[in-house]
Each structure stands twice: as structure tokens, then as C-alpha cells.
């Protein structure tokens, strides 16, 4: 039994704007029967490029139907420019959230919207198809990279939840991991280029790096880490779980935790362990 919000249930049981639009200004088709969900989105504009009507047809589960219905409701009354800024996160938020395994339904909505707008603008389908990484669901490296970047994904499981890639035979897990690594790596130079981090920014970045990068890696081995304090470039942490008793913890601290923080925050970082 999925934990759907009342809003999801409402949009599923009483979907808004089901149907097709004759002579639409934009149409976007995504998904397929094989994949288990598909959406065709239509919209019609008024003279000021404002969406005056939007309709959908969806094959899929309750959250796919609810996401489509919510999207049409969000679109009507918006200018094309405003519509363009809608993200999959916005769709999920509009519904009061989606179970994480169902996030791909909101991504499907965003993708259909994008296609419909491209269709209206007349620019032929963008030639950024990329290479298929997940053969089970026909997901390309570009789609995965985008989902990782936009939703700050750090694990293969999350990628599967958002774009389905890796949810079938599992043969592509290594490639997905590479993409995740590349994206996370790519963000590094951008961060390094901003040399003057304020103290607040630096602390936030340290916290984020610990949460997103370091903790999940340590958790895998039953370990954990807690940020105690930051003063200047000195980061004080406490190791927990198996790390706390592990003889190699000093190596973990220097070779992994410190290295990661130096790479992603600033090269001057020094990590110190606080023991009770």
C-alpha cells in the first residue's frame, strides 16, 4: 500500500483536464506501454502566449495520473515563459509530495511539458538524445545526468526512483555510478572557483558534503560521522558506529573524510577527531 497524500488521491480519483485538444499549439508525448507509464500532454495558447487550456492522457499508476492532472492545473493561466520554469520537484510539491519510488512520475510530467513546448516553438526535437545507458527502460546518459544534477541525487537507487534507469536487469549500475561521480566531480571546479567562501557558506558546504557524500559511504560499512564544530579551516568530527572502534579510523579520517572535504569545500581543510 502506497502512502499517497490526499491531494494525490484526489487528483487520481477526480483527475482534472483529461482528454485531447483539437489543433493544439503544443503536444508532448513521453513514455511507452513497455515502460509501464506514458503521458501525452496538450496545450492551447491565447494571443499573449498564455496557456488557456491544457489536457492530458495518461497510462500508468495512480501517481502518474495524479502528476499529469496536477501539471495541467498548474499550467492553465501561466505564460509559456512561466511554464518553462516548472520542475519535477514543483509537480511533486503541488501534490503534497510523492513516495520516493514514484518520483519518476513527476519527471515524466516535466519531460512531457518540455516536449510540448519544444513542439510549439517548432524547433525540431532537440538532438541531445545521448547514448542509451539503461536498456531496460531506454534511458540515456543525458537524462540521467540531468536528473542527478537537478535533484542532487547521489545514489543509484535515487536515479532509479527518478528516471527508472537501473530498475531492470541492473547491468547498467556501474555506468550510472560513473555518471553520478562525473556530475559530483564536475561541480567541484565550480565551487573551487569561488575562493571567497563566507564562514556561513563554508560551514553549510561542509555539512552538505558530510551528509551527501561522506555519511552514506561510511554508513555502508556500518559507520557514521557527526560534525561537532568548525573553526576556521579546522573541522571537528566524532566518528560513530563501527568507525568509532575501527583501528583504521585515523586513515579513514585523513584519506577519505579530509580528502573529500578538501576536494569539495576548500583545500585548506584540516579534520580533527574529537573523542569524549
Amino acid at each position: 500500500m502506497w502512502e499517497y497524500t490526499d491531494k494525490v488521491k484526489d487528483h487520481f480519483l477526480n483527475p482534472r483536464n483529461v482528454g485531447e485538444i483539437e489543433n493544439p499549439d503544443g503536444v508532448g508525448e513521453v513514455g511507452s506501454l513497455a515502460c509501464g507509464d506514458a503521458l501525452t500532454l496538450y496545450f492551447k495558447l491565447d494571443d499573449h502566449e498564455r496557456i488557456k487550456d491544457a489536457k492530458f492522457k495518461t497510462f500508468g499508476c495512480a501517481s502518474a495520473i495524479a502528476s499529469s492532472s496536477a501539471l495541467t492545473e498548474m499550467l492553465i493561466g501561466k505564460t509559456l515563459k512561466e511554464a518553462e520554469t516548472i520542475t519535477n520537484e514543483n509537480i511533486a510539491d503541488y501534490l503534497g509530495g510523492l513516495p520516493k519510488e514514484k518520483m519518476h512520475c513527476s519527471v515524466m510530467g516535466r519531460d512531457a511539458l518540455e516536449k510540448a513546448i519544444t513542439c510549439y516553438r517548432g524547433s525540431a526535437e532537440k538532438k541531445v538524445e545521448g547514448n542509451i545507458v539503461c536498456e531496460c527502460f531506454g534511458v540515456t546518459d543525458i537524462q540521467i545526468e540531468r536528473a542527478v544534477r537537478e535533484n542532487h541525487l547521489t545514489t543509484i537507487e535515487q536515479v532509479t526512483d527518478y528516471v527508472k534507469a537501473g530498475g531492470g536487469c541492473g547491468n547498467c549500475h556501474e555506468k550510472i555510478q560513473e555518471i553520478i561521480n562525473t556530475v559530483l566531480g564536475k561541480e567541484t571546479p565550480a565551487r573551487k572557483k569561488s575562493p571567497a567562501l563566507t564562514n556561513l557558506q563554508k560551514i553549510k558546504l561542509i555539512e552538505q558534503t558530510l551528509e551527501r557524500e561522506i555519511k552514506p559511504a561510511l554508513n555502508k560499512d556500518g559507520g557514521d560521522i557527526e560534525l561537532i564544530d568548525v573553526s576556521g579551516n579546522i573541522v571537528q568530527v566524532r566518528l560513530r558506529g563501527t568507525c568509532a572502534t575501527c583501528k583504521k579510523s585515523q586513515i579513514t579520517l585523513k584519506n577519505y573524510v579530509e580528502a573529500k572535504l578538501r576536494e569539495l569545500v576548500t583545500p585548506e581543510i584540516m579534520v580533527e577527531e574529537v573523542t569524549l
Partner: protein
Amino acid sequence: MNPLYFDNNATTRVAPEVVEAMLPYFTEYYGNPSSMHTFGGSVAAQINDARAKLSDLLGASPDEILYTSCGTESDSTAIMAALRSNPDKKHVITSRVEHPAIKNLCEYLAKIGYRISFVPVDHKGRLDMEYLIRHLTDDTAIASFMWANNETGVIFPIDELAEILSERGILFHTDAVQAVGKVPIDLKKTRIDMLSLSGHKLHAPKGIGALYVRKGTKFSPFLIGGHQEKGRRGGTENVASIIGLGKASEIVAAHMAEENSRIKALRNKLETQLVQKIPNALVNGDTANRLPNTSSIAFEFVEGESILLMMNEFGICASSGSACTSGSLEPSHVLRAMGVPFTAAHGTIRFSLSIYNTESEVDLIVEKLPPIIERLRTMSPFWKGGCGCS
């Protein structure tokens, strides 16, 4: 709202007579059957009585039954016992449509160095016997084939399998969780070495299972502990549930004829009328060799989770073989192994009946479901109004 419960392959209602039989073992007779005093020791006699009732249902002798906590434990116990008793054999053969209790165990065994053959099935879910025979070797420690499939109800040719395997001296285990209580079983007549069953599929409570081990079969316990179950399964007996399973065995034995007449007729009515009223509805599996209570129907071009949730609004309980309900992204491994096309697999619903279902319930589903499918189809971009094209 009273549920219209058509999900009996998932679990069943505990029969009121079973509850009644169990209650005194919580309140009055709470002693430990291993105790020396009469208060506890007399419970052991009641367990023996329950064991005799279960063995009667199976055509086994009481000392061939050992109690476990569930079907999954029975399956694991059987397979691991066979492997430990035959340490030089490194091959296991099973089918591609087994319950996860066997499927995932075999996948695990493959990771730790065993060779596993997964025998394919045809589009109706029938076992590829030729493939099976070709893959039996001197190295095969155990063959495990389910008696009846939980999703489609398709029954495997158990007698024939038993013959083929015993001729070659290969241990034969069957996961009969869905079959026990629904089809007659006589283990005296069939050369099955081990058989798993689960109480909650036959109106006993959850948390009790049993494993039949044919006399003379080499065995090694899965749960190592006390002397209970003659040292074959440690752990204090789940007394009340064992009593419940004994009572349930009596009840299903008494209802076996009804199961195969009234329930079967209800299932057939439900299936025929739904297929008649709903275009592009297909029955999955070998209808000639099926459990009397199970119907797996594919409604093309719609998705199972949506169907289930809309039926839920009317209190109708069923299951789906679709991806979305399970949190995985692909339809069930059973439907995929059968090669059910995606158009159908995603929209597959399983109805499974029990002795508690009535004709008026069937009529209500026949009334409520067609508009649900129609409504979802008008929403589906693949539905072009009954021509079947997409």
C-alpha cells in the same frame, strides 16, 4: 465497509472455528509442552493431535511433519537441508516462476558458488519438461518446483516430476503453499521428498508453517537449538497456532469438494463475465490446469495499480502483477517468464477466492469493474476504442 475479499492467495481469513480452538491455548493451557509437569506436558498431546490432523490432509505420517514459522522458513529449511546433506553436489534446479522464497534463495545460492538452472515456462505458464530433463545431472542436489503458482494458479505436473526425479535419485522439494487445502494431496502416492506449506493460506493464522520431510530423507536443521521437533527445528512450539493449523486442516479437508465445485463455479462466473463485458481482457495461464480459486486477468492498455485503487473505493480487494504496486519497475517475473506482452502484463489483476466468498460478491465485482476499466481506458493514450491497436 465490509471488504469484498478476493485476495485469498495473499492471505485468508482465520476461520472462526480455528480462532475458537486456539483461544484456550493463550488463556488456560499456556504451559510449555516440553515441561515435566502435567500442566505443560498435556499440551504436547494436543500438538500431536494437531500434527495428526495436518498429516491426514497431506496423506503423510505425523512424524514426517515439522512445524516452522512460515512458508518461507519451510522453503529455506528444505533447500539448505538438501545442500548440507549432499555437500559434494553443487547444482540446484528450479523454475523461473517460483515464489520469491525460492527464487531469491536460489539467486543467493548462485552468488555463493552454486549452479542454478531456472527451467522456463511457455506462454501458458507450463513447465518446459524437455529443458528440465536435459539439465538434470549427477551434480544436482535438489529440484524445487512449486505445486501451484501463486499469481496464475497454474498447477505443475507434480506426479510426473516426482517420477522423473526419483528415477534419477534426485531430491524433490515442492513449495505447495498455494496448493494445500485447495487440491487433494496424497503424499503416500507421490514420491515427493519435501513439501512446504503455510498456515495463513488455509484459514489458520499467520506465523505458522510446516515442512513435510519424507521418512528416510537426510536432514539437517535450519534453526539450531533445542530438542523440539525431534531436534529438526529448535524453538519453543507456537502452540496455539499449531492447534489452529490442525483445526484448519480439518476444515479445508471437509471443504475440498466445495472448493472444487462451488468456489470453482464462482471463479468461473467472475472470469467469464468480466472477459465478456470488458473488451481486450485476457486470462493468463493454463486454464485447464489451474487452482479452482484463482483467476489472473489482463486488462490491456491500463495499469494494475490504478485498477486496484479504484476497486479499493468499493472495498474490492485483489492483487496485481503490475510493476507499480510492488515498487519495482517491471511487471512480475511470472508474467515476464510467460512472455505475457507488456500491453497486458501491466494491467494484470489476480482474483483469488475462498469458501467465504458469495455469488452476490461476484455479481458486485462484475458490476463495478467494467466502468473502472472503461474510465481508465478513456484516460489512456494507448486506447483507441476497442480495436486493440495502439
